[in-house]
Structure formats: C-alpha cells, structure tokens
C-alpha cells in the first residue's frame, strides 16, 4: 500500500479562460493532517473542489494509489473521501438526525448494516454531544457553530479514510473554531487523514503536521507545520505578531 493516501500531482483548474489553480502538487500521508493556507482568492476552495470531483481539472490525483481524477464525487465518497465544504451544504429542511443518517447513505447502499451506522452515529454524538440534543431540530435553524459540527458529523458518518475540510473556522467564534480543530486532532489519532484548507493560518498550522502556502493559484511554500509557524515569510504575511 502506498504511504500516501492522497497524492495530487501538477493539478490545474480553470474557470473558462481563467486558471485558478496552476500546477499544484501536494500529498496527505496516511493518518496525517496536511493544511493548505493562503489568502482569500488564492484558489484553496477551487483546489479542494477539484480534488473531490466537483470541478473538472487537469493533472493526476491518486487516492490510496488509484487514479481518481475524472471520477464522480459520488464514486469518491464510496472510496472513502468526504468533503466538508465551505458553505456546509446541509439539508436545511431536514432534521439533524436525517442529515446524519444521509451521511451514511453510501455505506448503506454498499450493504453495511443499520447497526454499523448506529455505532458511527454514537461516535459522532460522542464527539459532538450538542448534535445529540439537537436531533429533531431542522438543520436550517442551527447556529453557525452547530452547522459546522453537523457538517463534520455528516462527513464522519461515511467513515471516510480522508476528510477534506474547507475553511472550518469561517464565520465561527474563536472558541468554537478551537473546539472543532481539537476534534480534528482527536480524529487523527483514530487513523483518519485530513486535508485542511484554512485562512486562519495559525490555527491550521498548530493543528496540522505539514503545511502548504497557496498564493494566486500556485504553491509558494511548503514544509513541516511546526517549521512554517516559525518561518519569517509566513509570520510576516499570515501570522503577524502574537
């Protein structure tokens, strides 16, 4: 088995004539958290959407050694990838419980038992006790932090091998962001690999093992997350003084 769970090689993503991501290569090893930081408009969300098959791209993307570029999003979900998108994309008119159950749709179709899904549901409730309390509530009526918990919980219901997280801190209070990122660190201990895209560079680098800096569609820097936290250029541009 390849050591790399996700391996993106020279990916290009264009909106018509405009190339939003140009020749980006990155990877996520098994059981590690990699992060992509960068300013607004750098192409972070575009990159993640293309990896997840929501946007067409050029270049090679491999998941567990298998080429996945050109595959449908649904096929990637079945293979063990889950994206928590920036806009959360919850089913607003459905209950929290329905949203979570649907997170296990691909597993149910693959023949997994209700009991297996019930176990995962318990695990999600253990991570986010608030979701257990909110089960019968409509997803559209949740607060921003609760929606993020639900979006992560829904993704986890699919028992992914790789979780792709797009701006989990967006619009959230710092305390809630810290909670969510600490939950992600906990999940790494269970063997889950994570690709985290984040504008909040400090929080992202503190959580991740390895970091990439994306600027105007190209990687400008990469290295161990701990090293990047002390890199002069990263400090000057993204971290500022503490």
């Amino acid at each position, binding site marked *: 088995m390849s050591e790399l769970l996700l391996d993106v090689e020279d990916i290009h993503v264009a909106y018509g004539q405009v190339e939003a991501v140009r020749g980006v290569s990155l990877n996520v090893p098994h059981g590690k958290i990699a992060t992509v930081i960068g300013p607004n408009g750098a192409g972070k969300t575009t990159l993640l959407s293309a990896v*997840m098959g*929501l946007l067409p791209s050029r270049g090679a993307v491999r998941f567990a050694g298998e080429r996945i570029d050109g595959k*449908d*999003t*649904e096929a990637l*979900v*079945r293979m063990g990838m*889950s*994206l928590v*998108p920036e*806009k*959360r*994309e*919850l*089913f*607003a*008119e*459905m209950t929290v419980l*329905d949203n979570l*159950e*649907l*997170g*296990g*749709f*691909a597993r*149910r*179709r693959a023949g997994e038992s209700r009991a297996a899904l019930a176990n995962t549901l318990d695990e999600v409730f253990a991570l986010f006790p608030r979701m257990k309390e909110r089960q019968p509530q409509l997803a559209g009526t949740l607060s921003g932090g609760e929606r993020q918990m639900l979006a992560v919980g*829904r*993704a986890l*219901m*699919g028992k992914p091998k790789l979780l792709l997280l797009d701006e989990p801190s967006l619009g959230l209070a710092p305390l809630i962001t810290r909670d969510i990122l600490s939950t992600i660190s906990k999940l790494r201990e269970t063997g889950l690999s994570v690709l985290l895209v984040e504008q909040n560079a400090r929080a992202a680098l503190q959580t991740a093992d390895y970091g990439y800096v994306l600027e105007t569609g190209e990687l400008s820097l990469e290295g161990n997350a701990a090293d990047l936290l002390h890199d002069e250029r990263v400090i000057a541009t993204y971290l500022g003084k503490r």
Partner: protein
Amino acid sequence: MDSTIAALLTQDGLTNGAIYCMIALALVLVFAVTRVIFVPQGEFVAFSALTLAAFEQNKLPGTVWLLLALGAVAALVDAGSLWREPRRLVRTWLGTSAPCVAAALLVWLVASAQLPFFVQVLTTIAAVTAMGPAVYRLAFQPIANATVLTLLIVSVAVHFVLTGLGLLFFGAEGVRTQPFTSASFTFGALNISGQSLLVYAFTAFLVIAMAAFFKFTLFGKALRATASNRTGARLVGVSPNFAGSLSVTLAAAIGAVSGLLIGPIATIYYDSGFLIGLKGFVGAIVGGLASYPIAAGGAIFVGLVESFSSFWASAYKEVIVFTLIIPVLLWRSLTTTHHEEE
C-alpha cells in the same frame, strides 16, 4: 341547482380532483428533485389506460413496441458513453434498458396468454413504470445541469415525441376501460359509484405511502436531500442521476395508477395525457411546485372547479380551470423573493 345536483357535481369533481392530485404530486416530486417541469407526465397516464384497454380487447398493446424502442435507444446511448467501462455499462443496462425489455416481454406474455384482469392491471403498472428510467436516461440525464428553461424546452419536446409514438403504437382511436367495480352505494339521495370510492382510496393510499416513503426510507430521504441541496447530496454519495431516475420512475408509476383509475371515467386517446397533466400542473402550481399538501389540495380544488363549471358554463370549462392559475401566479409573484438561478 338543487342539493342533489351539487352533490353529484361534488362527487364528480372530487373523483377527477383525486386523479389530478396524483399527477400534481408526481410533478412536484420530479421538479423538486430534477428541476424539470415534467410535461410528459400525462403521457404515462394515457399509455396506461391504452395498455389496459388493449389487454381488455385481447390485442397486443402498442406498449410492447414503445418499451422495446425506448430500451433499445437507451442501450445504444449507454453503450456509446460507457463502452470503455464494461462493468458499469452492464449495471446501467440492468437499471435502464433491461426493465424495458423485461416489461415488453411481460406485456406480450400476458396479452398472448389472456391472463386475468388483475394480472393485466399489474402488468400495465409495471410496463408504464419501466418507461421512467429510460425517459430520464435519454432526455434529461445528459442535460441534468442545464437551466430550468432548457429543461422545460426538452420536457415539451419529450411530450411531443411520446405523443407521436403514442399515435404510432396505439393508433388514433379513443378507449374506455371497464370499471374496476360496478358496485354503487346509496347515501340518502346520493348515489356513489364504487369506482369513485376506489379512486379516493387509491389517492389516499398514495398520499400516505409517499409521505411514509419520504419520511422513513433511505431512498425517500435521499430524494428529499437532492431536492434540498444537490451539492450536499452528491457529497454524501447520492448521485443526481440516481435521484433523477428514481423520481421519474416514481412519477411513471403514479401516472400508471392514475391512468388505470381515469380509464373507466373518461375516453382516453393517445394525446389525452396533455390536458390531464395540465390540470395536475395547475394544482402543483398552487403549491409553488414545492409543497406536496398544498399541491394536493390545489389539484382537488381544480377538479371541483372543473366539475361545477361544466354545469354552469360547460363551453368555458377548460378556460375557467386554466384561469385559476392567474391569481395564484400573481399572488406568488407579489409574495416571493426572486432569486437568480445558480
């Protein structure tokens, strides 16, 4: 108008309204999941009645050829797009073309063996339902991400193609099928036919079954999820093609049942579906093509208005029914916030 006439008209209106109600529910379902205003819904109704009528006349229903044509074209289109992936091609064939061929064989068998009425009814439902996946695969799947307007234009085109095929395979003659029951019940001065009661019972059953399907089953929830957020649905592994195909298949099944129920009440021609579908559409519009209960209520109201206007101003019956849509649209345009299409 005395109370007896009013009661008769109400009974008539409720019976037709119940059938429009089923059509309205199917239209809301397909629109919510696929954004297609499903004009060909009426064709499923007409083909169903025409198939059962052919069985009753001991003829081979034209449905056989219609199913074989749909199945063959869908198989060729799938082969063209998936020939590099033989496993996926076989799976796709099993979901789209194979049901058409199997249903065609079943129709042929039932017609040749002259099996009993009950079997004919079930075969008719199976045959019309099998058209659903093929119609979705051929007409809507390739343009699933198009604008609502493009989808509507294609929907109108599918209606014309199916009507043309209906003329080719069923002929121009109108049919009326035997009622499921000739029983009638008298309540005071009012005489209610068993057929009307059957229509009410089927409609009530369908409404309850649909509600249960959406509330309790995984596939029902997947359809609601797709209607609520297409990207979100894809992210949990619900393919828009799967959801689209499932919704049109359910619509075809509902159309088949509606056709069986309306067959004994009205004379059905190859092109009768359009007008029936349009009345269901007026009901669905009352619910904003989004609310199942309001669409159902709207459709029953359409049936009542149609029935009473046929008494007071029969020449203007259709005009009055379709005029109902104007105040609803006016009210909706004044109260709904306009969103740019994504």
